[in-house]
């Protein structure tokens, strides 16, 4: 690993140590939560925003959906952070560089704390966490560095996308205070994780990709492109449309998922959210401009 990642790891460790706390305790869990009365997701970030369906919904229905979309957002964060913690734990002592190992301890600690507040909201107010729908077939053979690169690249995709929502919602006065606080707390930690993750992805790419043949490069790019798309599909979980009571009125929750996901407004939203991420991936030739990579395909 290069000196740049070591410097970032040391700086982030020092910041993490300075702000060591128990974020879930800083949330007032006694605040009253009434579904349909408050916004729990910013209206512009609702999956249906700009689609014909949104125009048919009353404000109360949109607010109800905003609650279930928040439950979905927190659930997908839990479902993304569980394998992340597992993967980071596996890598704890594999780096020869102690500054990396030291930062991974902070990283794991902070991810665990995120799951505490995400999980508490879901269980206290919704009585459940939505299940992870991702299934990964085991891959028997990896090129050197391929598994490691894809692990950190997937983490980066997942965290960069979620952070966009956190940034916009962390200070949004329209949101219920608990939701606003959760988004703010998450962004504060993720800003450090993202800086570390980007450098890690870049270092691993530069270290290994030059030795990968065309077949491996193409496989890695396809996996990453597909991962971006499946990450996005989780934001359109049919279960939240069902829980918001929309399935009875507007067809099955699967029909709603299909029409909303493939709506031009939703495609434009995804493209806009991932602009920075794609620019990073393209600039470093990790994904190529020609890749079918903008998550705009139909479900």
């Amino acid at each position: 690993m290069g000196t740049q990642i070591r410097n970032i790891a040391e700086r982030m460790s020092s910041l993490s140590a300075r702000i060591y706390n128990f974020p879930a305790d800083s949330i007032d869990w006694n605040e009253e939560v009434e579904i349909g009365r408050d916004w729990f997701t910013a209206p512009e970030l609702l999956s249906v925003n700009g689609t014909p369906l949104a125009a048919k919904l009353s404000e109360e229905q949109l607010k109800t959906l905003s609650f279930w979309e928040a439950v979905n957002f927190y659930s997908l964060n839990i479902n993304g952070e569980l394998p992340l913690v597992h993967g980071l734990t596996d890598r704890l002592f594999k780096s020869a560089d102690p500054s990396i190992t030291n930062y991974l301890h902070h990283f794991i600690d902070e991810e665990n704390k995120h799951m505490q507040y995400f999980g508490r909201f879901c269980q206290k107010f919704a009585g459940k966490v939505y299940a992870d729908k991702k299934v990964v077939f085991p891959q028997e053979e990896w090129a050197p560095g391929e598994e490691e690169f894809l692990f950190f690249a997937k983490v980066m995709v997942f965290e960069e996308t979620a952070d966009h929502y956190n940034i916009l919602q962390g200070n949004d006065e329209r949101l219920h205070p608990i939701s606003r606080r959760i988004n703010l707390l998450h962004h504060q930690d993720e800003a450090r994780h993202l800086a570390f993750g980007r450098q890690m992805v870049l270092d691993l790419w530069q270290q290994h990709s030059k030795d990968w043949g065309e077949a491996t490069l193409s496989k890695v790019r396809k996996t990453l492109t597909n991962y971006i798309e499946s990450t996005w599909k989780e934001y359109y979980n049919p279960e939240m449309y069902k829980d918001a009571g929309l399935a009875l009125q507007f067809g099955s929750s699967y029909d709603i998922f299909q029409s909303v996901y493939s709506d031009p407004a939703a495609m434009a939203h995804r493209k806009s959210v991932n602009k920075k991420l794609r620019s990073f991936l393209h600039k470093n030739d990790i994904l190529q401009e020609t890749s079918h990579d903008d998550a705009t395909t139909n479900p």
Partner: protein
Amino acid sequence: MTMPQQTREFHQKLFTWLAAQNPKVNVEDLRPDTNLIKEKIISSMQVMDLILFIENLRGDEPIDPASLKPQAFESVDAICSSFLNGEGS
């Protein structure tokens, strides 16, 4: 033994869905025991879409894939017995 009508319908819907996902596949070439993973008819990334489609066939009843093995998606037969015939729910 005659296949129940509902199972036949599930098979047909799944064949149609699979062919729509993969332009190289013809519905007529698919059999209930065709290995969808080995024949590269679906990738692990498409399993999420498949789960959503199966949930729809189950009347929007959700599936928690956490405890499932990839074999549950190995063939249309496996999918039906895991999710659509009262098992694996």
